């Protein structure tokens, strides 16, 4: 179990190998990518900021909750900070489990809770030259 804030590019293929377990019959991964628009505005780039220590601590809690709620083997999450370009991987979640149901559910739980609880902020740079902090907390 590890939740990591990183300023280096995320490498999903390398991370995925950490999920391998002989008891695992299912692996579900999620990648969040930087999109070229938000709410109808053309986005040119994104900048993520985090309080890394608190983010990693809260993230570790989310992974532990997932492990407790679902029958999974390993859960990992990595979130990028700094300037990102369109198409870059901003967040990666990987789960291995005995069966697919728990793997899907745990992966969904981890990304949803991460978006709602972990101190990470996103600033969009629009084609118009304006910038804006995204307010996407859902609860």
């Amino acid at each position, binding site marked *: 179990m590890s939740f990591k804030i990183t300023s280096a590019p995320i490498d999903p293929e390398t991370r995925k190998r950490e999920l391998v377990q002989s008891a695992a019959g299912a692996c579900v991964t999620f990648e969040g990518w930087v999109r070229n628009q938000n709410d109808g505005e053309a986005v040119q780039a994104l900048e993520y900021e*985090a309080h890394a220590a608190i983010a990693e601590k809260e993230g570790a809690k989310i992974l532990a909750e997932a492990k407790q709620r679902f029958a999974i083997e390993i859960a990992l999450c990595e979130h990028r900070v700094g300037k990102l370009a369109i198409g870059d991987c901003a967040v990666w979640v990987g789960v291995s489990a005995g069966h697919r149901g728990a793997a899907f559910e745990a992966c969904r739980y981890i*990304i949803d809770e991460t978006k709602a609880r972990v*101190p990470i*902020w996103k600033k969009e740079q629009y084609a118009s030259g304006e910038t804006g902090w995204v*307010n996407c907390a859902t609860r």
Partner: protein
Amino acid sequence: MIEVTARYFAAFRERAGRDREQLTTNARTAAELYGELARKHGFVDSMARCKVAVNDELADWNVALAAGDEVLFFPPVAGG
């Protein structure tokens, strides 16, 4: 009155025009301090959507403040 340090992140930092400040305050809780600072800097987000940490630990808005505390104000998060 106690002395505390307030630290601002993301949209709060830009709105306040600084990332930290030393304050002498009558606020007894993080919530009261947020109320004071929201008036001072024009923060409009409700506390329900924001988070607070005291000395690098996430805290409840009703946590009592002590002299020397570092209080971190987090605007609504937006990871992913």
